[in-house]
């Protein structure tokens, strides 16, 4: 470190000190940093069992200093259920992308929430399958071009993008469901607060906690990181409104 460089803040103890594999401008790194900071701040690092899913997010187990198990594509909520039922005394966290959670894993996420499993799920919605090379996801926006919707998503044939935070908010076992975005500092701060709330409802034994994060995928969107942030603001938020869709603590 040169004399001009100043260490502004330390890495949270839950975060492993290694470079991540994510593309420039991808916000998985931001989301995972928030999760790591929260685990550290809430004193959960040594008490957490992490379930990682398939897709770009699978390597989260290399980036968080917590015990973890890898789930098959879409099945993370079922694996998390098994973990929590075996170790009801532990904090159980899972992290899924949109292809994983809203397509192949739709049944698992709905029923995990509906049973009110006391787990926290972070859902990264970047409207595209990232790791497999940019195919259409259930959350791909109308008209959005992907490698499997080359003319743009056509609702007449492919349906409309699925709004998960609203759906999860409708289910009886859900204690907290919210949608936030990672496109600017203000929204990132709100995202951390929402994630904290989802963690807290698990700790309080109130039920299932869910946070949808609107995030960038500059590589598969064929955009610069700045353009990608603008897309969240101009195209994603209008279709995926930010907000809290259920909070059992607020209803008291």
């Amino acid at each position, binding site marked *: 470190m040169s004399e001009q460089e100043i260490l502004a803040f330390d890495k949270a103890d839950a975060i*492993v000190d290694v470079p991540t594999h994510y593309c420039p401008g991808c916000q998985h790194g931001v989301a995972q940093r928030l999760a790591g900071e929260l685990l550290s701040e809430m004193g959960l*690092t*040594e*008490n*957490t*069992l992490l*379930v990682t899913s398939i897709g770009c997010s*699978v390597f989260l*187990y*290399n980036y*968080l*200093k*917590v*015990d*973890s*198990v*890898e*789930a*098959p594509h879409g*099945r993370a909520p*079922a*694996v*998390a*259920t*098994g*973990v*929590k*039922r*075996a*170790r009801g005394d*532990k904090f159980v966290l899972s992290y899924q992308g949109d292809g994983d959670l809203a397509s192949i894993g739709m*049944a*698992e996420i*709905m*029923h995990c929430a509906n*049973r009110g499993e006391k787990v926290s799920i972070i859902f990264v919605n970047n409207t595209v399958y990232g790791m497999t090379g940019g195919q259409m996801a259930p959350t791909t926006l109308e008209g959005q071009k992907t490698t499997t919707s080359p003319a743009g998503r056509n609702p007449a044939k492919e349906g409309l993008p699925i709004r998960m935070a609203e759906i999860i908010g409708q289910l009886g076992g859900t204690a907290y469901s919210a949608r936030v975005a990672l496109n600017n500092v203000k929204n990132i701060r709100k995202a951390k607060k929402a994630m904290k709330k989802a963690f807290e409802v698990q700790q309080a034994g109130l039920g299932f906690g869910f946070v949808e994060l609107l995030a960038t995928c500059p590589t598969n969107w064929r955009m610069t990181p700045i353009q990608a942030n603008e897309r969240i603001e101009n195209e994603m938020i209008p279709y995926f409104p930010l907000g809290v869709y259920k909070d059992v603590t607020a209803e008291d």
Partner: protein
Amino acid sequence: MAKNGEKLFIKGNEAISRGAIAAGLKCYFGYPITPQNDIPEYMSAALPAAGGEFVQAESEVAAANMLIGSASCGVRCMTSSSSPGVSLKQEAISYLAGSQLPAVIVNMSRGGPGLGDIGPSQGDYFQSTKGGGHGDYRTLVLAPGTCQEAYDLIIEAFDLAFKYRNPVMILGDAIIGQMKEPVITWTPEEKAHDEGLNWRIEGAEGRDHRIIKSLFLSEGSLAEHNKTLQDKYDDMAKHTKQELFETEDAELIVVAYGSIGRIVKSTIRKMRAQGHKVGLFRPITLYPFPSQELKSLAEQGKKFLTIEHNLGQMVEDVRLSIRTIRDSDFFGFMPGNLPTPDDFEEPILKSLGGK
């Protein structure tokens, strides 16, 4: 060391359930499908009462994946299903094997392929013993022939699962699941291989974090992992188990497993009384297959007839076992019907009279 319990008149499905709880089952995940519904039904009341967790999953797929979660915590856990449901569980079984996780899967099999029927069949032999899911892996497979054996083998299944950190399957069928027999219950006083689990996830307190996974991307690491798995499968070959009945002076050995092995035993008794020199070899472990034991019978010059409630699956393992010395005749009893001991008399006579 065992603590004896009571003598009960119960179905095979209940014997499986009671045996699992006696073995220290902590988590059961299931989904209704005939003819194994007695298992989730029994578990839903008895397991919570015994301090465990019962979940009726949204699908067989979810149930098998819940097993991955609980198994990764190092607790005794199981799921049960029947043929089409077990097909759905195969993805998770491959992941359990790839992640080296201990779990027990019960298949009370029925007729297939497809939706088939709800009657008994042995059509899942290939699926059970040769993989079923993707990749190079093996599942230990135990095939009970009586309700008592169903009780005993599920207790052994948990020990083997933890010894090898591998999925273990109990392969029964609609006959074993639905028939009632006297069963003497017992509770193992010690759980073998469950202590000091330095692989399970439990919270990374005071040590580096653990990762349970089956993804090995770096050059050579998957090959290394598969070598470890293969060494384990080689070691499992020591655990073969079989029943020999009237084989000593037999000219013809019938090879049959599970409920069919038991029905053949009745045929053998009747035919022995008529003076025919026939015997039964009933494999109890289907993987590993008791090849050496079968081969030693072939070396004594005996003839073989394999009888299965399918169109010919285990006969391939029988032929592989004895191929340097003998061949085996085959009689497949068509699934969709229920065999009696009399149905096997004619094929045995034909085989006995053959070359």
